[in-house]
């Protein structure tokens, strides 16, 4: 019964075209944001991201209380004069931009670090692919040789029974053409094939792992590189499921 009531309320919100965050009144969202800022959980970036998510949160995240607190945390040397007519958020923005250079270098370093990791992963992937190709070729060669030898073996067993002359002579030819000891070679080849297959499965696993790591690093990179104006085209597209202009996509990809 309770689950049903729960579901009803949730679906009522959906029906009224409101998100889940509407179930909390303004003052509770304010408290959440205040608590986050006070415990240094939310930074200026988080507040800006929140303000971009919807109108209501935009309004709530611009409040003076939050930004004054952030100002006192991040720029404690700032002396707020009583003639300050600007909002704390814009004051923060000004101080922040003065500080930008330092931050820019740090972020560039982080991006470079992740990019070098990506480079490393790609290189390893290529290596694994190369070895995979080699191993596959070895496997093919071994299988071909095995086929040939099996034919020789069949021929030699067939010689032991009576056959028409033509076939007999052909088989004799096959057996004589083979210069290696058949039994031993067949065993050796079968072992080699098994070994190759093991190597290949090992390489496939390693490739998958490396791929996963590469994807994770790429995701980290995109998170670190997030910028509202650059990803505007993409977000818009995903929201309205329109085809995005190639320009926007290319711009993000070539960052």
């Amino acid at each position, binding site marked *: 019964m309770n689950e049903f009531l*729960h579901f009803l309320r949730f679906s009522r919100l959906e029906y009224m075209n409101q998100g889940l965050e509407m179930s909390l009144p303004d003052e509770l969202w304010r408290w959440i944001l205040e608590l986050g800022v006070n415990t240094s959980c939310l930074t200026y970036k988080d507040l*800006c991201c929140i303000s971009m998510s919807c109108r209501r949160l935009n309004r709530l995240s611009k409040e003076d209380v939050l930004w004054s607190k952030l100002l006192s945390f991040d720029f404690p040397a700032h002396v707020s004069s009583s003639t300050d007519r600007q909002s704390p958020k814009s004051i923060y923005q000004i101080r922040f931009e003065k500080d930008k250079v330092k931050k820019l270098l740090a972020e560039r370093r982080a991006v470079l670090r992740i990019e070098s990791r990506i480079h490393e992963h790609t290189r390893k992937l290529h290596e694994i692919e190369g070895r995979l190709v080699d191993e596959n070729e070895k496997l093919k060669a071994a299988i071909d040789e095995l086929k040939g030898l099996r034919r020789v073996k069949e021929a030699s067993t067939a010689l032991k029974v009576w056959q028409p002359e033509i076939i007999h002579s052909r088989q004799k030819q096959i057996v004589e053409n083979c210069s290696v000891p058949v039994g031993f070679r067949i065993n050796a080849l079968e072992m080699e094939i098994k070994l190759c297959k093991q190597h290949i499965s090992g390489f496939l696993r390693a490739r998958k792992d490396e791929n996963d790591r590469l994807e994770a690093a790429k995701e980290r990179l995109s998170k670190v590189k997030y910028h*509202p104006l650059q990803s505007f085209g993409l977000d818009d597209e995903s929201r309205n499921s329109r085809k995005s202009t190639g320009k926007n996509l290319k711009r993000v990809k070539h960052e």
Partner: protein
Amino acid sequence: MLKNLNSKHIQRFSYKYLPQFPISPNSPKLGFSRSQIANYRSNFPTTIMSSSKTIVLRSSDGETFEVDEAVAVESQTIKHMIEDGCADTSIPLPNVTSKILSKVIEYCKKHVETPNADEKVAEEDLKSFDADFVKVDQSTLFDLILAANYLNIKSLLDLTCQTVADMIKGKTPEEIRKTFNIKNDFTPEEEEEVRRENAWAFE
């Protein structure tokens, strides 16, 4: 004198002012029968002489929960209701469903049982309890926030709100919208303006 007391009179007193006399069924002075005393007892908000008092809470869907008073007064709202003498039979909580109420009671019980976090073990235990407590789905978490706000339980409110703040931390706007199922109600022009306004934070 006592024979004239009926439920109408009793409801006007807050329990602090109740006469302090023992209700012993065998007390010769009073000379009541057992059934009269049982009836009398049921008209008081709490049993006077016993040390552990229980409060009955009623959720919005009619389910009742019996809790110790010490647990119930973790909630300032309930505490004030008891002090004002409104807790006769049960305290109705029309804004809290039974599912959420049971969770809140679980939280209060744990926090009342744990002694004042002097030992490291108790503190760690409480922390891990809290961490597991908030591992619930979104809408339950929001309901817990609303309940903690309504019942005025500061520690639960702080815990749940901190959880939400942690969920917000480090996310891009699209991820925030996805996490909290927020509808993007900006018009395209508004959206562009908001993004431009906030672009400085990402340079």
